[in-house]
């Protein structure tokens, strides 16, 4: 269980978060949505210690995050970050996934056969079993994102955070990645830009605006015109097709 309450974060002269709160839900995917600059990525970074809030508390279980070592935090929380492009450094998929096991080994300890087994299983789970020897930079965007998720799986932390995992992916890969994330049934928080994806793949949504969570609830409750329009500043139309709700935006939408 990972929970943040009353988070204030100031970066330079800018108040990025003010009183934000968010928590994981057992086995569910929580979507963090909001316009550009609303503080989504910053809030996510507070949740794994990358940023230290000026006020408020982040609790892992019942322990404050600042009382834990970075290694203990990583044992509880795995993250698909935006910076792990690994372009050009020549690392193989297998080597990359295996690095997820670092949290379970001392700095001086070599990886064991058990670690290699866990990494292999993780690759199998993301349907990339034959890819261990491939160079990471040779993979397509979608495959690479699955490798990032495999590294988190190999880390065996109960909570997974994903920072815009569908960025730069085409439609097919966007759906593939989020289907995979759902199938893992971990306590997950995912930052998403695309509200239609959020509607389809999240069990719960938190809407962030100017550094505070202005609305939380089921997707069908959050993805309403009267909730979204003041935050995004654009007209929203809803189209319900069976069990799915689709959104269209702009004055001439639908």
């Amino acid at each position, binding site marked *: 269980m990972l929970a943040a309450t009353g988070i204030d974060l100031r970066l330079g002269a800018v108040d990025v978060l003010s009183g934000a709160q968010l928590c994981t839900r057992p086995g569910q995917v929580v979507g963090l949505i909001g316009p550009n600059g609303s503080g989504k990525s910053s809030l996510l970074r507070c949740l794994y210690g990358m940023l230290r809030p000026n006020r408020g508390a982040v609790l892992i279980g019942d322990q404050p995050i600042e009382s834990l070592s970075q290694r203990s935090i990583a044992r509880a929380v795995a993250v698909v970050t935006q910076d792990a492009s690994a372009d050009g450094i020549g*690392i*193989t998929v*297998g080597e990359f996934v295996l690095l997820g096991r670092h949290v379970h080994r001392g700095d001086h300890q070599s990886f064991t056969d058990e670690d290699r087994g866990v990494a292999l299983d993780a690759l199998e789970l993301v349907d990339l079993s034959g890819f*261990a020897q491939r160079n990471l930079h040779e993979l397509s965007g979608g495959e690479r994102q699955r490798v990032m998720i495999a590294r988190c799986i190999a880390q065996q932390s109960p909570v997974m955070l994903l920072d815009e995992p569908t960025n730069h992916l085409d439609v097919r890969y966007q759906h593939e990645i989020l289907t995979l994330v759902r199938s893992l049934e971990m306590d997950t928080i995912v930052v998403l830009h695309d509200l239609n994806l959020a509607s389809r793949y999240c069990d719960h949504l938190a809407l962030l605006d100017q550094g505070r969570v202005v609305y939380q609830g089921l997707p069908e409750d959050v993805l309403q015109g009267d909730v979204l329009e003041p935050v995004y500043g654009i007209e929203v139309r809803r189209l319900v097709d069976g069990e799915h709700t689709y959104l269209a935006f702009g004055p001439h939408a639908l």
Partner: protein
Amino acid sequence: MSAQLESATADPTQTKPNANWSWSRRSTLLALALISAVSVVVVIGLGPVGVAPSTVLRIIGHHTIGVPGVENWARTDDAIIWEVRLPRVLLGAIVGSTLGVVGVTLQALVRNPLAEPYILGVSSGASTGAAAAILFGIGSGLGAESVSIMAFLGALGALALVLALARSTGRITPSRMIVAGVAVGYLLSATTSMLILFADSSEGARAVMFWLLGSLANADWSTLPLGYLSMGAGMVVVFWWRRRLDLLALGDETAMASGVDPGRTRLVLVVVVALCVGFAVSLSGGIGFVGLAAPHIARRITGPIHRHLLPASAALGALVLVWADVAARMALQPRELPIGVVTGVLGAPVLVALVRKLPHNT
């Protein structure tokens, strides 16, 4: 790095049989270590006075473990091998290894393939210290090794300045480190030039220039143990944190998410490698290109994982430097070239060739 490396960078997640890849990497590293060791023996015999490797081994055996037998070699050979060449080659080996390891470490810390041991401005500090000692006799009270000691103090001063600048706005990030290092480097290079101008001594300027370009000619038994102990300890610390380097090379957020505090790790490693460079420069001057070329060649052989890359780069650094020293003392004999000239002349084309073979998106 490229498709050609795939056979060498084989599957690390293969539970069994993983003997193949382990063997191929282990045997590559073993071969490198062996070539370096054999090179050390061979190059000791090379120079204006040639000595056969077998005689070299017997002379070393006689001095170290007192190998019994008739001393059927010339006394001059004994003096040349034991007093001059062996310390020189041993210094070359440790300095070369250090530059190789420091180069790899800095490339990971700043995530830039152009990073090299002198990017931290530490060598410029050492040069300023050495120039002050050579030209103005500053620190002459420190004894026979005053130039080396002043060089080391200069390196420490530069490091303190770089850390103060890089940390002034919080955590040390790659770009802050590079900018601080380059700024301090320029400042101290200018100071060294000023010292040379004000000294107004062509002989002194020549001595400083020779020192700046690097040389192993000052190697002797009295300074070797300290050099080995300090640089060896630094390399052990870096190897201990080899996996942190793997993760830092992937990005600060990824490192953090994998349980590594990038700021603290970078700070500790910067201090360790800067001290290593300080020791290396104070004992042998500024030897360029080894710390840049050795990591790149090593990476092509072993791939990017530091468990293999660090020892490979250490072995290659030593190998390159001891052979460059042979060229330095034999190319224009009886005159000796500064070793930095040799490594520069040989290193530049090697580096260009390596860059041309990098993948297009690199």
